């Protein structure tokens, strides 16, 4: 269970990136986080792995208080919460296999345990035949799938995906979504920030809409919609 309690994040020189966010996400849920750029989606995900600190409020994953966690124990949180980054964050001097294996090596697993598990995950993301390729030899979709493999190989209970389909064509985006749904089936909580209207509208999962740092809607079978205020701005821009 993830719980945000009146969480505010203020970056110096800016308005609040997030204001008074209170939300609960149950174990095994698939949640879309939508909203325009700058709405606070990435900030919310970064708070969950304490890549940044909340200015106010508390964030808890089960009994783990993220705000008060000892910096030296931060890795415990980050092993619990796997992250798929929009810019992949792969190590370019390591192969697909080595990048994926990193998720287990950091846990101190033995090579004999690592190999079968990594191969299973590479099969799942469809990269078994690319195991010896380096990231720079891959397409954007393959790099993203390598990032997913690394994030899930250690079996995290929560998976954060920050616009994982942001740089991908529609077909590859659906491939990624299929992988994420497979992972959810084994009980992993998925929180995915996205701008992809068709995916959100078609899957009809819980959808939290953020705008200017605030939650403007939280629907169980949500759709991608733009607030009236924002719609007005868009109409004005197109008429000009």
């Amino acid at each position, binding site marked *: 269970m993830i719980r945000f309690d009146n969480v505010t994040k203020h970056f110096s020189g800016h308005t609040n990136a997030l204001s008074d966010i209170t939300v609960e996400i149950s174990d095994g849920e698939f949640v879309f986080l939508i909203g325009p750029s700058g709405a606070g989606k990435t900030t919310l995900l970064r708070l969950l*792995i304490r*890549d940044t600190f909340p200015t106010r409020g508390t964030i808890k994953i089960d009994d783990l208080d993220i705000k008060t966690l000892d*910096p*030296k124990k*931060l*890795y*415990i*949180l*980050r*092993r619990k919460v*796997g*992250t798929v*980054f929009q810019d992949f*964050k*792969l*190590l370019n*001097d390591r192969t697909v296999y080595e990048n994926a294996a*990193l*998720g287990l*090596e*950091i*846990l101190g697993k033995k*090579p004999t345990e690592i190999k079968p598990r990594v191969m299973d995950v590479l099969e799942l993301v469809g990269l078994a035949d690319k195991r010896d390729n380096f990231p720079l030899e891959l397409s954007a979709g393959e790099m993203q799938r390598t990032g997913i493999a*690394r*994030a899930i190989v*250690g079996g995290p209970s929560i998976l954060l995906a920050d616009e994982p389909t942001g740089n991908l064509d529609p077909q590859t985006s659906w491939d990624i979504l299929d992988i994420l749904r497979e992972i959810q089936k084994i009980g992993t909580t998925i929180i995915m920030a996205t701008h992809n209207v068709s995916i959100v509208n078609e899957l009809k999962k819980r959808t939290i809409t953020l705008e200017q740092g605030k939650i403007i809607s939280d629907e169980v079978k949500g759709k991608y919609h733009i607030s009236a205020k924002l719609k007005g701005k868009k109409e004005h821009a197109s008429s000009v």
Partner: protein
Amino acid sequence: MQALSDMWNHIRRSPYQSLAAVLTLFLTILLAGLFLLATVGSSLVLRFFESKPQITVFFTDKATVADSDTLKKTLEATGKVASTKYVSKDDALAIYREQNKNDPLLLEMVTADILPASLEVSATDPTYLHELEPVIQQAQGVEEVVFQKDVVDTLLRWTNAIRWIGGTLVILLALNSILIVMTVTGMKIALKKDEIEILKLIGASPWYIRAPFVLEGGFYGVAGSVVSWIIISALLLLLRPAVVGFLGMIPVISMIFGTLSSWTFVGFLVGLLFILSFVGFLLGASGSMVALRRYLKF
């Protein structure tokens, strides 16, 4: 295993920085090793002389056994003498032969006639030595009086000088080595900033990230130590005849350096390798640890 592989990649990708660190550590360990041997050697010599009788009275060739007996009785009568031992010309020859048993040329040239008889005297308290001196000087047949105290004092001055100069130099070089390794590690941390950030984000523990850097610093130290050890070993092999010639009368030195193929000599060299490598690893790893504390915050 992964830490070792990462360490090797760090070294391979910036070989010149690594070479600078290894050379600095090599110089430090080489001097530390040489001064360590010099200090241990001089301490052994010092201990050897300290264990010897405090006064050795050498008699002229004309002096008789009766002269030495008279002196012995006179000294014992003062009540300030703990023990005395008469060493005849024949005894002196036997001692000489034992000390030079490996050098037949030296044995051929010496007979009992040219060696002086002597009386070894130990005082109950070292402060009595100078009170005993006039008694000895006035005795018949005395040619020379050698005070071990003078020898010991001179050796002590040398040993202290070696300790001070060597110690200071080694400390300065050790600090220099730590700073060099710290700078090299700092540069490598900066080069791998993105990778470190990724590792942190995916849940690598602080030690998982630090280990390759610490091992790298340790590797520099061990590499420098091994090169130093090769040079020190070569020097020891080269100087061995001279060492045995000058200091062969000291049992430990004679035992280690006496025979080249002996296990004690091999054991000594292996032990030296372990000591130097351990010190090198500590120095290198310390430099890395300082850099990690300074540049890699969690």
